[in-house]
């Protein structure tokens, strides 16, 4: 029995990562029968989600390092390993990915125009790539998955988006591609110096100071990673691709973009910049946090004046992701915990907001706020669900957003009071633009007669929205369930020097041996 659990534990991450792509393959070979394709996609994504629940249910609490690890040689020269594993931070991001994908399938049930088959193939490939980013512990593998997210997402925007979709798709691709080239250079540097792509090996080698020339190069390496992640987050002033991509993307694309792809940036900042380069990260924290604060306030102010709902939510993402970056670069336990929690919250609430907007768009084919008004009368259920999600995004106590923002801001205050003071204004702004959006859309007179006839949320839409609202509520009241697993891993990231000496020396000798053999 123990063997069985052991076996399934080492297999589970591989399964979670590659079941979606297997589903994509099945769909690609199926005849073009829309119903069968949709159900296959839904079943595949639900199966993946069910598999991912294995992770928290078999979690070994208190264990150091990465769990469910699997490490096998992929290519011998260069020395690339198939090394997967999750800690308390990445495990939740994996589950966020697998949780959101079935809903993306559901919201695309009727809204996809054009090649349905290709759409679901792309979506499932994207799921594999996103999961791969969070579970990879080999830098090379990480880079492969990182780049692999680009093409399905760009194609999803470009093939199924709205009017300016091609511009948005190319902009998205170029921004992220160009930025990640610098990360590749940093990764190659590590390989040349250590003869390994392994995250754990490199981390230990840095801590034991056994990498030649690291101190001289650290600054450049830090920026190599930082640029790639800052563009992805997106941190002000690298954010200009995001509103375009969001506005033009189909609903499912927006949900995955906001829900998961942006988190790859913050995850990378935490996993690489803050953990591998603590000295450089502390040194540059001030201006990074200033950029994050500018992002919070600027994103909120721009969101306030948007006439287009989707653009409003897109700018709100810039603002909310600013909180995550701020939390990470306070280097306080609370701030980083909050940042990780806020990544999950943002995935749920902004994902749900995009789903809601998509449903409205299916009915009226416009995102202009002035086209709506008084929708609460014809669409009461929809309006209620929208309100819950809005409040979760605003950060109302008892809902999930509050927990994350509270932790981040407490961390920010203890780091430097001005971080906290300016950051707090972001909460007020977000209440402003979101509630104003709600008021203009749902309250008041029905100005356009066509709006009086709009259908309320139907069964499929309710099925896809109610779990999101439920999650927002559960994560608001039962946050310890999550924090309990996040906390120890954050602690390790913040104090990486406390890796026990025995293992550090062991691995550093390995590094020396490896670098010798590589030469």
């Amino acid at each position, binding site marked *: 029995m123990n063997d069985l659990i052991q076996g399934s534990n080492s297999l589970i991450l591989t399964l979670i990562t590659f079941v979606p792509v297997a589903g994509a393959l099945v769909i690609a070979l199926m005849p073009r029968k829309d119903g069968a394709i949709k159900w296959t996609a839904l079943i595949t994504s639900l199966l993946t989600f069910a598999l991912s629940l294995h992770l928290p249910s078999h979690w070994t609490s208190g264990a150091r390092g990465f769990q469910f690890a699997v490490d096998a040689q992929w290519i011998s*020269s260069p020395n690339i390993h198939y090394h997967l594993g999750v800690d308390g931070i990445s495990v939740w991001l994996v589950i966020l990915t697998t949780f959101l994908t079935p809903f993306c399938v559901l919201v695309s049930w009727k809204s996809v125009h054009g090649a349905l088959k290709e759409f679901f193939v792309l979506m499932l490939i994207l799921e594999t790539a996103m999961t791969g980013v969070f579970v990879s512990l080999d830098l090379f593998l990480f880079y492969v998955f990182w*780049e*692999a997210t680009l093409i399905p997402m*760009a194609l999803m925007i*470009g*093939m199924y988006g709205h009017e300016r*979709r091609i511009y948005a798709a190319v902009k998205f691709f170029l921004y992220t*591609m160009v930025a990640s*080239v610098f990360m590749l250079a940093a990764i*190659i540097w590590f390989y040349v110096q250590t003869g390994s792509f392994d995250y754990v090996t490199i981390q230990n080698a840095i801590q034991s100071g056994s990498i030649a020339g690291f101190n001289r190069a650290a600054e450049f390496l830090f920026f190599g990673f930082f640029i790639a992640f800052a563009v992805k987050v997106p941190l002000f002033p690298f954010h200009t691709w995001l509103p375009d991509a969001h506005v033009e993307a189909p609903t499912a694309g927006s949900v995955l973009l906001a829900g998961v792809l942006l988190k790859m940036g913050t995850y990378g900042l935490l996993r690489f910049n803050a953990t591998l380069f603590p000295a450089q990260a502390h040194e540059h924290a001030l201006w990074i946090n200033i950029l994050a604060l500018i992002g919070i306030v600027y994103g909120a102010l721009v969101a306030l004046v948007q006439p287009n709902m989707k653009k409003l939510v897109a700018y709100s993402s810039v603002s909310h992701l600013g909180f995550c970056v701020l939390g990470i670069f306070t280097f306080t336990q609370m701030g980083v915990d909050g940042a990780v929690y806020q990544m999950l919250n943002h995935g749920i609430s902004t994902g749900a907001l995009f789903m809601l907007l998509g449903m409205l768009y299916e009915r009226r084919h416009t995102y202009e706020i002035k086209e709506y008004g008084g929708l609460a009368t014809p669409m009461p259920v929809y309006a209620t669900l929208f309100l819950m999600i809005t409040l979760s995004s605003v950060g109302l106590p008892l809902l999930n957003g509050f927990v994350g923002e509270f932790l981040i801001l407490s961390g920010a205050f203890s780091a430097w009071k001005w971080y906290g003071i300016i950051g707090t204004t972001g909460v007020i702004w977000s209440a402003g633009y979101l509630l104003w959006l709600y008021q203009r859309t749902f309250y008041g007179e029905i100005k356009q007669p066509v709006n009086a006839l709009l259908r309320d949320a139907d069964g499929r839409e309710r099925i896809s929205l109610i779990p999101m609202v439920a999650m927002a509520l559960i994560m608001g009241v039962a946050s310890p369930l999550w924090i309990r697993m996040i906390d120890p891993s954050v602690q390790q990231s913040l104090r990486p020097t406390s890796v026990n000496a025995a293992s550090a020396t062991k691995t550093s000798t390995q590094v020396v041996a490896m670098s010798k053999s590589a030469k």
Partner: protein
Amino acid sequence: MTPNPDLSYVRILPELVLSVWGIIVMVIEPLLPARGSHKSLGVFSFIGTLVAMAASFYQANYPGWGWFNMIRVDEFSVFFHVLICAISAIVILASFEYLDTQQIRGGEYYALILFGTVGMVLMSSAVELVLIFIALEISSISTYILAGFRRRAATSAESSIKYFLLGSFATAFFLYGVALMFGATGSTSIYTISNALQSGQVTVSGSPAAVSYGLAYVAVALMFVGIGFKVASAPFHIWTPDVYEGAPAPVVALMSTGPKAAAFAVLLRILFGAALDTGKSWFWLVWISAALSMTLGNLGALLQNNVKRMLAYSSIAHAGYLLVAFAARGDIGIAAAIFYTASYAAMNVGAFAVVSHFSRSGERYVNMEDYSGLGKRSPVLAATLSIFLLSLLGLPATGGFFAKFYVFNAAIKSDLIWLTVIGLINSAIASYYYLRVIVVMYMYEPQEGEQKLQLHAAPGLTAALVITAVITIWLGVKPGNVLDYANRGALRLLPSVQQSSKLSR
């Protein structure tokens, strides 16, 4: 080292096979009915290249020298033999339907491809400068003619003449370099030259004399000009876009990979095999050419609307990436360059195979807008072209990525930080124009009137596409075997590389 007559023949077996096959094609072509003979001749030539490939594998069991030390069979030459035969085989496969739609006579076409292949194969195994020159001419003259094969099109004639005039000029440079090298070292054999340059002593008509290093430097530079033209590296690249635009698409597939691979093999032999001690001088030559090729190639490609011209500029850029490996330290750089050649050949032949099939009669459809909606009209063609373009762009899990990776890895190991930075920035620029084709194929609606244009899956082309796509992905997922072989080839090339520390900068 004693020339054994039997083994000498084994050591030129692929060349013999290809020559005989080419002659047979020429002889039987008039005997066959004019219509419908393309196919059978094509299949026959295809078999010829496969037999030549098998001969190369067989040859690998008998490494050594042949023909008075003018030929050397080792892992290095076998690697290039197999590569070049494979390129020709796939080009022939991709030409089956193309010749029909373009109404080109098959006999001379296939025979010239086979003869050209003889030259290319010989280039990679020759270790004597005059023989290299002869091989270079054999391959060049075939390609000059092939470039003009669309007789009715003025652009094709222009392409042929341009290629011929500039090409002859460039080979003259090479020959001049050979002459000067002979003057400097008293020999045209690469290994004698290598010894002479290392010891600084030569024996001229029985009496010892000093090597003239100045003359040797000039000789290497002149030979570099000649080869630089063949591989289309800047600043000797001006001819490329015009020639590629006019020449028949399958010929471009051959031209942009086969002679290039052979020319890079020659360059590797000359720079690393012979001119070891002049390393310091040619380092900057290669460095500047690499930086220029990458930058000019990519910037030029950005502006193109014709897909063939775009790929022409992209091939200039790829020559630049390859030269980065030349600038790197010998032991790692050579292997990276060899791997790059193989991986570049797979993706580029594939890309041109798609272009050739899609261009239709008279090569009408070669502009960017003609590709709009290809994703809907022909999913297979669009999907394979996307794989090749993504590989050219260097996305992970494709051969193009590992090729770039090894090159830049070698460059960083050799402390060529600036060249690496230039290369990486260039790859980022390149993503724009490769992506543009994919965007046009998948995101634009098909043009009016072309919706109905059916693209039949032709058997020859489909086979060529499947083979190249599989190789491209295989090199991106399991590059180990090819890299191992490239490493062994690199060591063979430089028996002295471990001792010679002068090369490593």
